[in-house]
């Protein structure tokens, strides 16, 4: 790669660099190392150049081989590399000076240090020796003091002087040496300064040169690049032009081809046209002949037509005449009709006016009637209100009268009882027991307990259970209830709970959401209310029917086939009953009663069953509840329809028991007792008479006594009067008056 012989044949533009490098510090330097360094640098630069050349060649080869890469890019890259190298070399060249000076400075410093060290050593030695000498001299002074002989002293002084002079000479020598050194240093400094200025000049020169060469190189490279671009552009232009020409040629050839084709075609078409024309002419002739024949025929026909036309014209003229006549007639008739229409229109108008009048009249009538009707309705409403009011008042009055009468009667009765008791205890001396009658405890008008609605019952029931009154319904006679005494309240409640839990789908979702915040009982109540309304359960009976139905169902599931049979029989009976029932209310009422009875009996039977198997509604599986309900609703539906009319009479009071009640009240005191009282009365009358006689006698007696006392008082009066004293003989002296 790098044979020594090849150094000679470097290309001329490299020589420039080399020449600049030869100008490097080596020329002016005294330092052998620097010269060596400079030589090395030169060799390195040559190597670089060599390498670059090889690289350039390689690049050229590559450029030729890879034509597809753009020439300008290559050139750019090449120039960049070249310039970078140039710059690097240049800066190295310039900084070489600095480096050289640095090394020189270091060397100088090292030498300086060495010299300094030596100098200091020398000075120290000198100081030591001179000190020794000085010590010697000072010791000799001591010796001199002891000398008495002047010659000796003089001699000694001379020697001392000599010694001192020697010492001084030594010192002076040293000083002169140092001064010499200083001088040489000064010289060296001046030399250094010169050298430095030379260096600086060199540096400036190099820098200038560098600037120039770099500028030149840049310009050159720019030129190269531009050239490369231009060449590329021209190549591109040429190639494009070629391409364009080729395309144009192809286009021209094609155009020519098309032209010839077209000519050929035109000729063909012309021939065809000629042929076609001839053919057409022939055809035209034949058609012409044919058409002429046709024209002749048609002319003949035209003649015929004309004749017919003549005929028709005449006919039509005749017709016209006739029609004109008819027209006249028709005008006459028209006028007549018009008149008639006018007349009819008049009548129509009359009728219309009449009709309108009628309508008005009727509207008025209608209005008055509606007003009447409204007033009547109002009246009726008022009447109803009044009636209701009166009914209430009547009820109240009735009740009040009843209560009053009852009270009166009861007063009477109590009085009678009192009398009886007095009679018994006082007169007869017998113990009296108060008779006990049901009607005595009755207060208020007798009436059947009003049927409660199902919900009320439920509410009651819930209330009861809440209060935890485990007692039977019988303990509270009226509240819990005639029908299902057999079924415990709890059972009912549980059934209802179950129903409530299971048939939530019957409750509206809105209601459910409203129920959430309520208490459990209220919640149940409202839910049950909703369920009942959905099932159509309204009255107490229905509720108990439901409960029973549940129990029955359970029994049906559990108990033996016999019971099932009975149940089915019952249902069969029911069904037959329903079949027999026709339309009459009476029969229906009876039927319902019958049903009630039946159910009662069934319930009784049920109760027995319950005793056998402990009643637990949980036996009823929750899943069955829906089935039961379905069956129940199916069963309930039919009787439900016909029950509506009789319910109207519910408000009418039953007064059948009233007379009985009152009658009973009258017979509080039985006839035997009355007989007793009669006998007693006669006896007592007699006793009374005797007593009255006695009283009379007592009265007489008392009056006599009074008379007596009065007479005594008078006598006293007389006796005590003044006249007596005036008298000669006072009666007092005569009479012996008993003194009190």
């Amino acid at each position, binding site marked *: 790669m790098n044979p020594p012989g090849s150094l000679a044949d470097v290309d001329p533009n490299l020589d420039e660099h080399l020449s600049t490098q030869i100008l490097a510090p080596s020329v002016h330097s005294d330092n052998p190392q620097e010269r060596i360094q400079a030589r090395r640098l030169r060799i390195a630069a040559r190597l670089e150049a060599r390498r670059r050349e090889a690289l350039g060649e390689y690049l050229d080869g590559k450029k030729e081989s890879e034509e597809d890469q753009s020439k300008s890019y290559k050139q750019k890259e090449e120039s960049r590399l070249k310039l970078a190298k140039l710059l690097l070399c240049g800066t190295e060249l310039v900084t070489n000076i600095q*480096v050289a000076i640095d090394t020189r400075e270091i060397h100088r*410093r090292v030498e300086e240090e060495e010299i300094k060290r030596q100098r200091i050593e020398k000075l120290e030695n000198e100081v030591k020796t001179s000190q020794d000498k000085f010590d010697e001299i000072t010791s000799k002074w001591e010796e001199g003091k002891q000398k008495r002989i002047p010659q000796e002293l003089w001699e000694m002084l001379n020697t001392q002087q000599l010694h001192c002079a020697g010492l001084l000479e030594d010192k002076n020598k040293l000083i002169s040496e140092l001064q010499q050194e200083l001088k040489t240093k000064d010289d060296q400094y001046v030399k250094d300064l010169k050298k430095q200025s030379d260096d600086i000049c060199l540096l400036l020169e190099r820098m200038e040169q560098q600037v120039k060469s770099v500028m030149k190189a840049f310009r050159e490279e720019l030129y190269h690049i531009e050239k490369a671009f231009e060449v590329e552009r021209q190549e591109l232009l040429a190639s494009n032009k070629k391409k364009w020409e080729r395309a144009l040629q192809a286009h021209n050839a094609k155009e020519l081809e098309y032209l010839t084709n077209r000519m050929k075609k035109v000729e063909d078409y012309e021939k065809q046209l000629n042929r076609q024309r001839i053919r057409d002419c022939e055809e035209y002739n034949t058609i012409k002949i044919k058409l002429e024949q046709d024209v002749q025929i048609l002319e003949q026909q035209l003649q015929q037509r004309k004749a017919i036309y003549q005929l028709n014209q005449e006919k039509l003229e005749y017709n016209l005449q006739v029609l004109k006549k008819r027209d006249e007639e028709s005008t006459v008739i028209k006028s007549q009709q018009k008149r008639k229409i006018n007349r009819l229109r008049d009548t129509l108008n009359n009728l219309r006016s009449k009709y309108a009048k009628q309508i008005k009249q009727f509207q008025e009538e209608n209005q008055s009637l509606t007003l009447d009707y409204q007033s009547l309705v109002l009246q009726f409403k008022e009447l109803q209100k009044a009636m209701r009011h009166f009914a209430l008042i009547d009820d109240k009055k009735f009740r009040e009268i009843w209560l009053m009468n009852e009270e009166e009667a009861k007063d009477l009765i109590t009085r009678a009882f009192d009398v009886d008791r007095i009679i018994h205890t006082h007169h007869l001396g017998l113990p009296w027991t108060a008779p006990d009658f049901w009607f005595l405890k009755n207060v208020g008008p007798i009436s059947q307990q009003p049927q409660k609605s199902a919900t009320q019952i439920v509410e009651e029931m819930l209330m009861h259970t809440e209060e935890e009154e485990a007692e039977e319904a019988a303990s509270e006679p009226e509240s819990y209830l005639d029908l299902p005494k057999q079924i415990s309240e709890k059972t009912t409640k549980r059934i209802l709970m179950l129903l409530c839990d299971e048939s939530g789908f019957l409750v509206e979702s809105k209601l459910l959401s409203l129920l959430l915040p309520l208490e459990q009982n209220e919640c149940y109540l409202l839910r049950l209310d909703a369920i009942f309304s959905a099932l159509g359960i309204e009255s107490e009976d229905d509720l108990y029917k439901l409960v029973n139905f549940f129990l029955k169902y359970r029994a049906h599931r559990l108990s033996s086939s016999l019971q099932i049979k009975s149940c089915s029989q019952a249902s069969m009976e029911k069904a037959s009953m329903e079949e027999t029932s026709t339309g009459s209310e009476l029969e229906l009422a009876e039927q319902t009663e019958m049903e009630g009875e039946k159910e009662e009996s069934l319930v009784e039977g049920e109760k027995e069953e319950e005793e056998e198997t402990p009643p637990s509604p949980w036996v009823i599986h929750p899943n069955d509840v829906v089935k039961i309900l379905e069956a129940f609703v199916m069963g309930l539906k039919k009787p439900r329809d016909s029950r509506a009319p009789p319910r109207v009479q519910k408000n009418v009071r039953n007064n059948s028991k009233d007379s009985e009640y009152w009658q009973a009240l009258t017979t509080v005191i039985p006839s035997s007792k009355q007989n007793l009282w009669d006998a007693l009365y006669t006896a007592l009358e007699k006793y009374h008479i005797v007593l009255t006689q006695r009283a009379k006698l007592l009265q007489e007696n008392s009056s006599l006594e009074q008379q007596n006392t009065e007479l005594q008082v008078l006598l006293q009066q007389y006796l005590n009067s003044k006249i007596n004293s005036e008298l000669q003989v006072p009666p007092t002296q005569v009479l012996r008056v008993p003194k009190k």
Partner: protein
Amino acid sequence: MQDTVTTSALLDPSHSSVSTQDKSSTGGHTSSTGPQLSKPSITPVPAKSRNPHPGANFHRMRRIIAEDPEWSLAIVPLLTELCIQHIIRNFQKNPILKQMLPEHQQKVLNHLSPDLPLAVTANLIDNENYWLRCCMQRWPVCHVAHHGGSWKRMFFERHLENLLKHFIPGTTDPAVILDLLPLCRNYVRRVHVDQFLPPVRLPAQLRPGDQSDSGSEGEMEEPTVDHYQLGDLVAGLSHLEELDLVYDVKDCGMNFEWNLFLFTYRDCHSLAAAIKACHTLKIFKLTRSKVDDDKARIIIRSLLDHPVLEELDLSHNLIGDRGARGAAKLLSHSRLRVLNLANNQVRAPGAQSLAHALAHNTNLISLNLRLNCIEDEGGQALAHALQTNKCLTTLHLGGNELSEPTATLLSQVLAINTTLTSINLSCNHIGLDGGKQLLEGMSDNKTLLEFDLRLSDVAQESEYLIGQALYANREAARQRALNPSHFMSTITANGPENSVG
């Protein structure tokens, strides 16, 4: 028309030639406004003289006016123009600029004299063109790039520099600089002063025109040769970023005296206080000023924990190991990015302390220890530090008496380190083996772009090969910079080219 023309021509022979000329142009001058305007002003006297011919008066007047060769609309300048001229003339007394329209402002600025007092222009004119003219007038060579591309900044910086250069303590009035302060405080970012004159002694006062000469004649007994105290100035400049000072006297000629080049302790203390107070300072340079260890420590102590300082240049001084230790402390107590201690007297202990600070530093990018004498001990310490450092990119160890052991360690560093881009080991005694080892280390490195081994006794072959590796690294870095995404692919593409060389 023809008649009047002829009559007038007959009447006034002096104008005949003109009138004949005018014949051709009469058709164009149909409008009467021009003549009416200039009628009273231009020819009042001749009109009176021609009054005896009343019939031809009007036409004659027109004729004459149309003939006036000096008449032209362009002669009358616009009022705005006049106003602008006036403003320019009286700018010094009544500066009006901001109130005008932009185009008028431009016009005024283009015609303002560069000699206007700074008190008027400093805070009023921002136009670069004006300051360009000012600069060009004062200095023949202007490198505006050194002043952030702003002519105004350049003007003020160089003006201030000029004042400082020629300031003589005790003689020059300090108000000269302090008066300038409010004018330039917003524009000066860099203060570069390469000479500070010492105070003038008694004989010098007799001839104050020649300060530099006079300063040298003083006796040695004067202990205080303090220079200008920068404290007030630095405190006043609100945007100061760079302070480049050389306590030196230029052109002293034959009046040379050692005393001239003294950087006294008082100078040092005042400078330290000034830079401590300046929180905007980014670059501080104090070169060629005979700063020894104690002064360096005073200055470095004032720079500890400085908020923005990025560059410290204390090159060409007399700093020894203690000063280097101070600099090492500064490295760990500031955000210093560039440290230059070139041409000082740092030896192995100083380099070791610097290396210790460098090992865990994350700010320093460039370290220059050129022309010191750290020797192998210091070099090895620095190489060890570089094994852990992940920040330093430039390291200059030229002329430090380094030899093979340092090269061995550095070659290990080269294999590991991925941040260093430039190393300078020129003027050392690396030796042949050291060069080989460095070459080995270089073969594993992909980031180093510059490696200077000139005059360091390295074998030519290894230097050449290192150059090859650097070339490859440079190419890779360039490719990376051009298209970072295709970095890997380009490496493979470049492979054969490099191998051929």
